[in-house]
């Protein structure tokens, strides 16, 4: 009798565990929208966190400012050199955008995947819970942010918005090894674009892995990797990183390209959200 009871208890425990797992799986993996009570709790608590952290962040900023003052002359020289080139780049940019507009008119294109506006935000908390690879930023629905918008830093693409409340948003980083998170990318080799899929992140070597590239294409080291704009979410031409090396996949059929990002994912403090403009004339 006791043995049968134990069996039942074990079965019930297993059933409960499976139910809990499927519930958690459904909540964590699917990019569901936050409910109004969740938004309210999240916004209120993070508002308090933001207020409390303000003086500490101020001190931190001042400390880093003081540290940066040591290298100020060196930076000035570099910026001076860059500034001399900027007029030339601006002129070229103006010319290119003019050409692009003309071509769009010619082809009757009302919307391209490269059109976006920018919104800067500050990181409120970073990767709490260690394994989630997420950031929380201080801008949300009220600032026009929506789910699936691309997020970048000045050193390249870092991820996309997965959850939005009134005043905060959650950014899922590209370092999260999520099978639903594949991004279409292009590698520029000698003025030609080679297309592939950014599929995962190798945490040990700090590189992204790009798959789906045919064996007979030679990929050079230091080639630029950017987004294609083919996906529904990421605009085209967003910088991701540079090719670090090339290996073969498990079946020796395709190349696996290792891409090194310039972004330091461990200490991101400020980000920019690329708000997609759905420009439609008709």
């Amino acid at each position, binding site marked *: 009798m006791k043995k049968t009871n134990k069996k039942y208890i074990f079965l019930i425990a297993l059933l409960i565990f499976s139910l809990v797992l499927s519930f958690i799986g459904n909540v964590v993996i699917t990019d569901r929208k936050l409910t109004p009570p969740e938004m309210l709790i999240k916004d209120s608590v993070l508002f308090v966190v933001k207020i409390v952290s303000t003086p500490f962040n101020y001190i931190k900023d001042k400390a880093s400012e003081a540290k940066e003052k040591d290298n100020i002359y060196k930076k000035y020289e570099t910026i001076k050199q860059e500034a001399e080139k900027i007029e030339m780049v601006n002129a070229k940019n103006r010319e290119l955008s003019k050409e692009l507009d003309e071509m769009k008119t010619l082809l009757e294109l009302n919307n391209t995947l490269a059109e976006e506006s920018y919104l800067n935000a500050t*990181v409120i908390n970073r*990767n*709490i*819970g260690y*394994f989630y690879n997420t950031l929380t930023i201080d801008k949300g629905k009220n600032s026009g942010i929506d789910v699936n918008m691309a997020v970048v830093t000045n050193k390249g693409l870092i991820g996309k918005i997965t959850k939005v409340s009134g005043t905060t948003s959650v950014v899922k980083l590209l370092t999260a090894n999520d099978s639903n998170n594949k991004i279409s990318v292009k590698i520029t080799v000698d003025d030609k674009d080679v297309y592939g899929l950014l599929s995962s992140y190798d945490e040990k070597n700090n590189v992204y892995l790009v798959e789906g590239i045919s064996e007979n294409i030679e990929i050079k080291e230091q080639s630029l990797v950017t987004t294609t704009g083919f996906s529904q979410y990421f605009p085209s031409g967003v910088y991701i990183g540079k090719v670090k090396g090339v290996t073969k996949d498990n079946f020796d059929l395709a190349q696996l390209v290792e891409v090194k990002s310039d972004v330091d994912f*461990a*200490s991101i403090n400020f980000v920019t959200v690329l708000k997609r403009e759905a420009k439609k004339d008709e």
Partner: protein
Amino acid sequence: MSKIIIMTFISFILEALLSTFFPTDSLFNCCFIVMTFIILYHSLNKKDIVIQYAIITALIYDICLSNTWGINLFSFLLLFLIIKGLFFWLSYTIFNVLLVSLVVIGSYRIIVYVLLGLIGYLTFDGYILLKSIYSSIIINIIYVLILYTIDTILKKYKKNYI
């Protein structure tokens, strides 16, 4: 009751705050809420309050900080059982609190990692799990020592303190 709220609030704020101060690949990954749990478990006489505390804290933590639902709720309840089991055999001394803290940090990371692995959120990699555990030890042990000291001092000078 005020003690529970104050301790939890401070741990919560500190955990969120320090996450932006230290790089995520440093040796200072905080799980202060869980550490607070160890001190509160022993200083509260009614153990059912600790369960309620675990459930409420886990829910707020899930919604506000980890952006998930249920993972911390499940793991906090399991941690409660682990802490209960450990303090059944061990007395409340500084050495034992440190020992329990080490077990709890390891268990917490393992439980969350296994849950996320089972639902397919991440792929199993022993190196990442090990890194998550050893990078959490230093700062959490320091925090639990501070909490233990404050708790002992308050107990000494305040008779009716909860």
